[in-house]
């Protein structure tokens, strides 16, 4: 099987926008394959931060002076850009720190107000801890129960199990769009349709989807959609929650403080309009503005092109690793069923040791439970190694990664298996 990158996709031009890719590690060029943890940032995004702080920095919303107006305008423009990027209106997009905060916001504001003793919350066994622990905390407070949809040996969601759970009429289905360990893309539109049919609300964890493929929340028709800027070229510290506007309006606030109020008296307060009701205190203005620029960048390259490029890299990685006898691959074998990442293990070497040895070659991969201990237990491992790709990675990098695995064998292989 030969792998082709679309001729129009100019990865070298893209790479030139990312200053960190010129870095060397231990004398080797950096090969950054830890994109599912966080992405690198293009010049344009870094420049947006610099420009904001050098030109327009001020607190938003309440100021009458020129800088405050400019900052407010930049902040709200960013909100509109990020909202439109996922097919939503700005009124239904709340800026958060990250996916985790977005899900906790729903758990606290919607969950505490709507879940009762015995209510059912459906999760899956491929959820990130960020889409498990908030529900455990809310279940402890409300008496709601959690049920988990398992995944098949191919790493796909067990749709039959899901449907049988739906027959118990859960209040909420909270599911990841793309698994950060298995790479699986879940059919969230179909899931939403089926969940809505039994009256459940649907939250989609889009942390690994929005960076890598075109997402349209209106089409998915879900009620909540959470994602992180830092995994999609934006700075750390900024993420977003999409929620249907009428839900945002009905929900009580999450955090209390400045901006999110209409009127405060000694005894009680009334709330500002959505989405401001959910943004208490001074927001992360600069990083929100840069988030807008990150989205511009992704749109300029084109999400379809990015997805196709990553698929080529994934195919190549799968092809190379599948040929290795001492390696196990997790998740769907078909690159078209995945987003751009591959989790694997040597049969005889712990992934920590793999990552450490690759690091000496300048190759950054991740090893660990990837905040998915339930998946680890299902796979009967404590950890996996994971190479994850993004728009700036190349086929050469995938091959360099694969070649470096020989170093692992040089250190550990001579002993044979244990």
């Amino acid at each position, binding site marked *: 099987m030969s792998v082709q990158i679309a001729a129009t996709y100019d990865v070298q031009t893209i790479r030139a926008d990312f200053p960190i890719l010129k870095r060397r590690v231990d004398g080797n060029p950096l090969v950054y394959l830890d994109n599912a943890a966080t992405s690198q940032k293009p010049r344009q995004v870094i420049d947006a931060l610099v420009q904001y702080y050098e030109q327009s920095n001020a607190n938003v919303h309440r100021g009458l002076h020129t800088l405050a107006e400019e900052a407010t305008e930049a902040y709200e423009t960013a909100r509109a850009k990020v909202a439109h990027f996922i097919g939503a209106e700005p009124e239904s997009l709340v800026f958060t720190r990250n996916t985790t905060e977005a899900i906790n916001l729903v758990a606290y504001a919607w969950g505490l107000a709507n879940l009762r003793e015995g209510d059912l919350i459906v999760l899956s066994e491929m959820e990130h801890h960020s889409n498990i622990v908030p529900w455990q905390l809310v279940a402890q407070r409300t008496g709601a129960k959690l049920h988990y949809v398992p995944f098949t040996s191919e790493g796909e969601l067990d749709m039959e199990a899901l449907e049988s759970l739906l027959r118990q009429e859960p209040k909420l289905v909270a599911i990841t769009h793309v698994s950060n360990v298995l790479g699986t893309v879940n059919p969230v539109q179909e899931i939403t349709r089926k969940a809505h049919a039994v009256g459940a609300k649907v939250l989609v964890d889009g942390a690994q989807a929005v960076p890598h493929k075109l997402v349209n929340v209106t089409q998915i028709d879900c009620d909540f959609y959470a994602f992180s800027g830092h995994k999609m070229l934006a700075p750390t510290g900024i993420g977003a929650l999409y929620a249907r506007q009428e839900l945002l309006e009905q929900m009580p606030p999450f955090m209390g403080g400045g901006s999110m109020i209409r009127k405060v008296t000694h005894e009680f307060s009334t709330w500002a309009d959505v989405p401001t009701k959910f943004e208490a205190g001074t927001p992360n203005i600069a990083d929100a503005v840069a988030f807008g620029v990150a989205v511009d960048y992704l749109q300029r390259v084109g999400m379809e092109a990015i997805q196709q490029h990553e698929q080529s890299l994934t195919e190549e990685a799968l092809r190379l690793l599948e040929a290795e006898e001492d390696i196990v691959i997790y998740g769907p074998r078909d690159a078209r069923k995945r987003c751009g990442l591959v989790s694997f293990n040597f049969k005889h*070497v*712990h*992934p*920590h*040791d793999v990552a*450490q*040895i690759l690091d*000496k070659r300048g190759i950054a991969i991740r*090893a*660990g*439970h990837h905040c998915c*201990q339930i998946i*680890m237990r299902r796979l009967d*491992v*404590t*950890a996996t190694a994971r190479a994850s790709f993004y728009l700036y990675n190349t086929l050469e990098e995938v091959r360099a990664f694969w070649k470096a695995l020989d*170093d692992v064998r*040089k*250190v*550990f292989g001579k*002993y044979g298996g*244990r």
Partner: protein
Amino acid sequence: MVDDELYREIILEHYHHPRYKGALPDANLTAEGINPLCGDELTLYLKTDGDRIVEASFEGRGCSISQASASMLTEALRGLTIEEARQLMERVKAMLTGAPHEPFDEDEDLSALEGVRNYPVRIKCALLAWTTLEEMLEAK
């Protein structure tokens, strides 16, 4: 060649041939440790006779560093008194965290762990067995 400083021969040797691995059915002291960063888990078993450790073993899965460190620990503890075990633990912890300590001789296996100090993330791996021991002795 690759990472000689970390992957010293003796560490790899302990990793591939851990000394006392497996549950100790007649242990009178056990403790479980977990490295929250990576999820690696370890169970430590000791059998004491009065104040003296007569047997030690461990179970669990982990990277070469955590496994080798646990293997060395079980080997080193046998025959020590509880107080001596505590002192050894303090000495290893000090070595790993860069605190002042009486260095190990080059021919003592434990000296091979010194290279870990330059790998901040791996220090937790090497420490796991020892902090599990610490909790066991504190709970005692």
